[in-house]
């Protein structure tokens, strides 16, 4: 079932010439099947979004992008192993400083071995959100818990009014996430990163000064419009913005399947003892 889904998603992205068409194709499919599924899955029709008892939007569910953002945030042609994409960056270009652009190019050349993804390391924020593997959101009044299928990453977005820690040198892999509501939009301020994660397979990167402001908004019961403003004065000449859509997994009995892929490197050393 999962293999079939992946194949379908890949076909959709390969056929598409732009993110807009990409989304359009999926939305068309969703539109065709949604009257039945939406009603049965979320008890919410088109335009209505699921809400908690408090009235706040309910992001609970298993989500995944269909975009090629992880292949490269900027517009790119097809290359071996990666479909083309019109990109997810507002204005198309990441405003790297001249020095940082050189590093990005080196990362790109070394991507077959240097991408932290290949070690199954925590993808970071925002990369974990648009990485092509599902993550599940569990939501309470005081927080949202994001469990990522890939690796061993659990991210908590606090919505209880607490502030970033007073000390700001923890250098988290996922950053420290504090959220607040602006109407139906969840705005999340994320700080206190290390410099170890990449933003895409194309070598896009950041430094410890990374500051991400996310905006999560349900545009219907099964689609999240995810936007992030990305700032790092050591690497970029100005803040820049991305936007991707996240789609709800609605396949029957779909669930996360733990993927502690870093264990695969030593899996061979742990055969289950068997009677000789």
């Amino acid at each position, binding site marked *: 079932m999962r293999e079939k889904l992946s194949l379908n998603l890949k076909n959709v992205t390969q056929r598409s010439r732009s993110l807009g068409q990409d989304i359009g194709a999926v939305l068309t499919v969703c539109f065709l099947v949604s009257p039945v599924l939406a009603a049965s899955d979320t008890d919410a029709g088109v335009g209505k979004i699921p809400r908690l*008892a408090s009235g706040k939007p309910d992001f*609970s569910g298993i989500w995944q992008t269909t975009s090629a953002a992880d292949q490269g945030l900027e517009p790119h042609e097809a290359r071996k192993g990666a479909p083309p994409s019109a990109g997810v960056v507002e204005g198309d270009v990441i405003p790297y400083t001249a020095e940082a652009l050189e590093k990005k190019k080196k990362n790109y050349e070394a991507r077959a071995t240097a991408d*932290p993804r290949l*070690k*199954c*390391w*925590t993808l970071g924020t925002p990369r974990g959100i648009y990485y092509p593997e599902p993550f*599940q959101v*569990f*939501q*309470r009044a005081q927080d949202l*818990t994001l*469990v990522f299928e890939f690796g*061993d*990453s*659990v*991210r*908590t977005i*606090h919505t*209880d*009014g*607490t*502030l*970033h*820690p*007073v*000390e700001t*040198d*923890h250098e*988290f*892999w*996922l950053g420290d996430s504090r959220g607040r509501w602006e109407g139906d939009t969840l705005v999340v301020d994320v700080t206190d990163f290390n410099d*170890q994660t990449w933003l895409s397979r194309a070598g896009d990167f950041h430094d410890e000064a990374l500051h991400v402001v996310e905006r999560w908004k349900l545009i219907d019961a099964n689609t999240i419009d995810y936007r992030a403003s990305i700032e790092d004065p050591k690497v970029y000449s100005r803040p820049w913005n991305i936007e991707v859509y996240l789609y709800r997994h609605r396949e029957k*009995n779909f*669930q*996360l*399947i*733990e993927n*502690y892929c*870093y*264990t695969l*490197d*030593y*899996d061979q*050393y*742990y*055969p*289950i*003892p*068997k*009677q*000789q």
Partner: protein
Amino acid sequence: MTTAESVQTVVRLSVAACVLALAPIIAAAQQEQPAASTRAAPAAGGIANERAFPTIESGKWAGKRLPDGQPDVSGDWSNTIANHDNFTDPQGGIPGDPSPVARNHKLGPRAERAPSRVSDPADGELPYQPWARAKQQEFAVGFFNAVKPEYIEPLARCAPSGIPKSLYWHGYEIRQYPGYVVFLFGSGWRIIHLDGKPHLPVNIKLWNGDSRGHWEGNTLVVDVTNENSKARFARTGEFASENVHIEERYIFSSDNKRYNYVATFTDPTVYTRPVTITIPARRWTLDDPKNSWHFPVVAANNPGKATIADHFESICVENNGGFGQLVSRKN
């Protein structure tokens, strides 16, 4: 302890856990602390506390509930007996531990220490088939003489602790949602599905298995299949196979301060009969003395408002750099 110190402690614990199995000498030195705690049995702090624990009967739940009707057991928990040094003699240290403290310390009568985690059979031993007993003892001997890669516990390479070891390797958090109970461990996560969907296909094997649960009064009943069974139960090498079927009962006291994990492991390929494993746990709150082993949290930055526990991200393989890869390359 400052926030930074707390974080460093968490990192140190992770690093220590990894170093433990790689270098037996260092491991022996690291063992001194929990072993000493065991003997002193301090009222608060240390890993080992209780030598006995109360039975909790399954029955009605009289405590508070979540809006969806589940008993509200969310929060921080940790075992009350000992860590994963020794499965059947939890406060007995690691057999063959070469550390000076362990060498010079003479354990008293077995009855003075907490009982085996095996509560049935009554002798406290796993009912191994003879070949399986030999395999367990091979690992126990190899732990301090890791001449084969498989004698290094996978947890030391940041693999998930698996079932049941996750329940006695550091404190952990339970978060609950309609349809789910989620365990967030120091090494991996477990999602208990309460919606009755079927288990995953049998050929998919996972460190934490595939869990389906439901509530019966004060008891969370969980059916676990799809285990990869690579994690071992303890440094003494106890194991099941990928054929194991685990029927767990998390029996909570209505005062919401304790629960007992009582689970039946059935595995005809390894054991001669089903075996029951019992692990006592208690709740931790910010009212408790600070303890970064059982309760790795800091107070959130919430000026002028309620004191709330912050759980920082749990990261292992990344922060331990080349450890796992180094071992992989060498071997």
